[in-house]
């Protein structure tokens, strides 16, 4: 049982922008809300923007971390649901990067009445190759290697043995230091997030979508190929796909102008909200 202010501090929620329309920006795996900073100047005059870190990422409250809850994407979706409820947000446009698109979809199905539309930047419902009809881009062995590689990087990046020494992987005392270094979050939480992200298959969720969705893809993305964008568009009602003339997986950081233009162009296509 958390109070509203518990949720807001737990998820390091920040609110900015001067517009009427609420836009909730959800960061992807490996990062935190700072990844939106290139896009913020282009959006904040037009939106009331809600930013947050998932529990286990960025400057969230590591004490609130629960390994089991955050071992599937539903746990992360619950963060979004609790934030929307705590702030009593209505008519929200959910904008997620990469895995947060699917997390947003999970959340939108639980609280459809609060959601107006979704914007998905470089999304993928499943990163695994499941022949013959689906090419997520990665074999199971690749993703096992990812876990291994993350381990090896965390030896250098974070206090790899600290959770063992301290005995409590969620101890708040060293999480503060870790949150200072961008993208190098707690090794325990990051690996759990990686497993939830890369070993899951949420394709069955797509046909259940109930909101207008804008899919933004890049021409070439090592994590989400054009095939995936087309697959999502074909299987998700009310979705439209826009391919941005750019390459890479972090369009909102490398091409914020083009992403912002697409968001602005998407709005008038939505039916007006009932006020």
């Amino acid at each position, binding site marked *: 049982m958390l109070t509203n202010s518990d949720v807001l501090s737990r998820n390091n929620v920040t609110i900015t922008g001067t517009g009427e329309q609420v836009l909730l920006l959800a960061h992807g795996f490996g990062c935190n809300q700072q*990844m939106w900073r290139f896009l913020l100047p282009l959006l904040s005059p037009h939106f009331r923007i809600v930013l947050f870190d998932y529990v286990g990422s960025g400057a969230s409250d590591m004490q609130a971390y629960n390994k089991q809850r955050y071992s599937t994407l539903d746990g992360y979706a619950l963060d979004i649901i609790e934030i929307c409820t705590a702030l009593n947000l209505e008519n929200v446009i959910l904008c997620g990067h990469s895995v947060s698109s699917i997390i947003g979809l999970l959340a939108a199905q639980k609280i459809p009445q609060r959601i107006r539309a979704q914007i998905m930047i470089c999304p993928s419902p499943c990163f695994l190759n499941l022949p013959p009809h689906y090419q997520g*881009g990665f074999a199971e062995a690749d993703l096992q290697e*990812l876990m291994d590689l993350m381990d090896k990087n965390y*030896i250098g990046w974070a206090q790899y043995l600290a959770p*063992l020494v301290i005995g409590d992987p969620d101890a708040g005392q060293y999480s503060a230091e870790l949150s200072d270094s961008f993208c190098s979050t707690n090794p325990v939480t990051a690996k759990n997030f990686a497993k939830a992200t890369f070993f899951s298959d949420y394709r069955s969720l797509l046909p259940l979508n109930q909101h207008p969705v804008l899919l933004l893809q890049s021409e070439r993305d090592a994590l989400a190929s054009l095939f995936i964008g087309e697959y999502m568009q074909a299987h998700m009602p009310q979705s439209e796909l826009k391919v941005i003339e750019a390459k890479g*997986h972090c369009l909102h*950081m490398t091409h914020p102008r083009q992403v912002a233009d697409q968001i602005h162009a998407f709005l008038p296509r939505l039916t007006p909200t009932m006020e």
Partner: protein
Amino acid sequence: MDPVFTPDVFPCGCLVTTLSEQVILRANPYFYQECQQTPKAQQRLSDVLTPASKIVLESFVMPMLLNLGHCEEIQLTIQGNSGERLPVLVNAHVQHGDEPLIFWVINSAKQRDKLYQELVDLRNALEEKAERLELLSQTDELTGLLNRRAFISRAQLLLKQADRHQQTCSFLLLDIDHFKQINDLHGHACGDAVLRQLGQLLLTNCREHDVLARIGGEEFAIICMDSPSDSAAAFAEKLLMLVSQQPIEGITVTVSIGVATAGQLSFEQLYKQADLLLYEAKHAGRNRLVAALYPAEI
């Protein structure tokens, strides 16, 4: 530039790429030797990496470079032309200009990777052991429920939470009636079976947030936050009925329950009150409950 002091002579991979897709613009011979490649037009750094390394590149390295402008000591794996895998250590920084560029230095990390693998294995083994020990230290061996120590720490958390939400908590202390007789008449194996099965019965009937434990020989405790719809006394009543209606090992088992409900008592105070109420229930003839609200009635 001094012809001796060029990137070509250094025993590390040096390369310059574009920012947005890491297309290799220049690289020294050492880099091509390391990844067993020959220079090609429009070759990207990710072309020589394993799929897992591409994920690390897109999820960690690029966001870091875009946000901070540099990254240090990132381990990636290069996949050579012949399929051979080479662990490497990568440093990079971004140079902004008309066309932003990334300057990379890539070093072999074969030896370091071996050491890291040993550390990873060791840590995983230790972690598993620690988890097992932690579980063991909280569990009552016979019933599989929480033990007394774990109960006290969970109960204290619950009381704190209840205090914050200005809610009352109830402490149910259950004791099996005439347990010594069960042991004496039917043997200790039977007594143990009674404890185990009663534990399971309580577990299946507790609500999600209730904390249940075996805290003594034949003594069980439940602590719960009160809800207006479901009073602790009614819950205890239900337990009394369930226990007495289901013979265990062919024996009719009954329990006595003390139910102390309070808003602002400490764990010790609440425990003590529940204990007194349990004593009253025993004294009044067993197979019953005595409930009281504190401090209203003190």
